[in-house]
């Protein structure tokens, strides 16, 4: 009987470790995908659109474009800044006064929000710029972003797949675990019925069987749960495992298993002493 009890604990422990593995694998995969997506967002943000606009209209255009939800920042280079750049780049210090008399346009550098800028937003950007007056030139093309969008599409697809399969596998395993605990408890105690009948009829302490049933219900789940959590904690402390155990997850899972284990007492056959 002790061997049977130990075997039950071992099976529950293995299932709990698999459960932990699935839970943490999902967390790891999603974090990895998020990290990759963040990199793509940065790449998008590093590819600004350039608008060459009239100095007079530049403030208005900058405000209009800056209000679009997918625009992160609009930087303006005005006439004086351009003159400054040109004079430094081409050593035209002496020609500064001449340049000042020229009617130079302003340059707007538009940085997009990586997480919000996709094909639809690109069309919206085009539409927004078409409406504006005072734009000389738009240095922008969709093709610059096609690779990034394609990468994001794949990452989202993987993330969705993991999330969907994870839900099924995780909840399926959780239900399996609960059913196994229930089955183990009922089967174990039903095998013990004869023992408790004999114990009681031989003069053994009344009520002891009830205490043992409750203790067995607790220990059958408590021991593997404690080991599983202990292993996870040990791996985290030793940096073998990158995640700190999720105590909320452990508490919810323990409560569910313990409840099922104790509820199984209702379904256990009553001993008859008659």
């Amino acid at each position, binding site marked *: 009987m002790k061997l049977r009890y130990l075997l039950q604990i071992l099976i529950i422990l293995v299932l709990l470790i698999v459960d932990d593995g699935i839970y943490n694998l999902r967390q790891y995969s999603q974090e990895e995908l998020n990290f990759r997506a963040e990199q793509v967002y940065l790449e998008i943000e590093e590819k600004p659109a350039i608008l060459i606009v009239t100095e007079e209209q530049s403030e208005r255009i900058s405000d209009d474009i800056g209000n679009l939800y997918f625009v992160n920042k609009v930087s303006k280079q005005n006439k004086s800044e351009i003159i400054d750049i040109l004079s430094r780049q081409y050593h035209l210090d002496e020609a500064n006064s001449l340049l000042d008399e020229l009617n130079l346009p302003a340059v707007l550098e538009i940085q997009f929000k990586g997480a919000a800028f996709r094909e639809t937003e690109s069309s919206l950007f085009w539409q927004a710029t078409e409406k504006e007056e005072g734009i000389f030139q738009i240095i922008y093309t969709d093709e610059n972003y096609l690779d990034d969008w394609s990468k994001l599409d794949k990452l989202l697809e993987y993330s969705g797949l993991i999330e969907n399969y994870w839900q099924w596998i995780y909840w399926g395993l959780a239900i399996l675990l609960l059913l196994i605990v229930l089955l183990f408890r009922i089967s174990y105690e039903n095998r013990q019925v004869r023992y408790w*009948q*004999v114990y009681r*009829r*031989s003069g053994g*302490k009344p009520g002891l069987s009830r205490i043992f049933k409750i203790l067995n219900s607790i220990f059958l789940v408590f021991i593997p749960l404690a080991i599983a959590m202990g292993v996870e904690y040990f791996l985290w402390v030793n940096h073998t495992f990158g995640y700190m155990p999720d105590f909320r997850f452990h508490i919810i899972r323990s409560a569910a298993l313990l409840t099922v284990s104790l509820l199984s007492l209702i379904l256990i056959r009553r001993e008859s002493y*008659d």
Partner: protein
Amino acid sequence: MIELKNFEITGAGSFHLKADELQIKSGLFIQISGNNNSGKSLLLKCLAGLYHNYNGELLYNGVPEKPGHYSVILINDFTAVLPEKSVKYNLYLPFARTTKRKKKLLEEMLKDCGLDKCLDRKMKTLSRSEIKILELIRAIIQQPHFLLIDDFDTYFDNFSLENLTKTFDHAAKAGTAIVITTRKKFEGITNSYTINSGEIHKL
């Protein structure tokens, strides 16, 4: 002491059992004889607290009986042993821990009954009578207030009774009252009752 006052059981059909007054004092050996279906076993179940559908009063030391009031062990046709386990395992089954004194007493009683050599044998290798003797010894060693043995003559005869005298003496010394039910009356038992026409009479 257990006392039955105006005790009455009315069962299905014409079954009826009545006792105006029956006292079971500690340390006594009481025999209740009667035919089949006279209600002997049911009476023991009432005393063991396993059957409550009766009229009248069942008093323990003058107070109405309540579960756990007194310790009682009933030996009847239920085989209260685990056949696959050893005799020793079965003998120590109800004890959380055993004192040296109890162990010594147990060895003594086993020797008196000629069962001291079978401690390591599996229970299933023993005869029905031997099993009942072991159940009896196991019960006596626990020193219950009452030891009830149903259909005593099914398992034991006059010869066994003589062999068990010393064992019963241990029970009497510990204050355990023994109540046995039999179909035929055993001679030499002073406290004898008989069930006749549904009524319990003292002989």
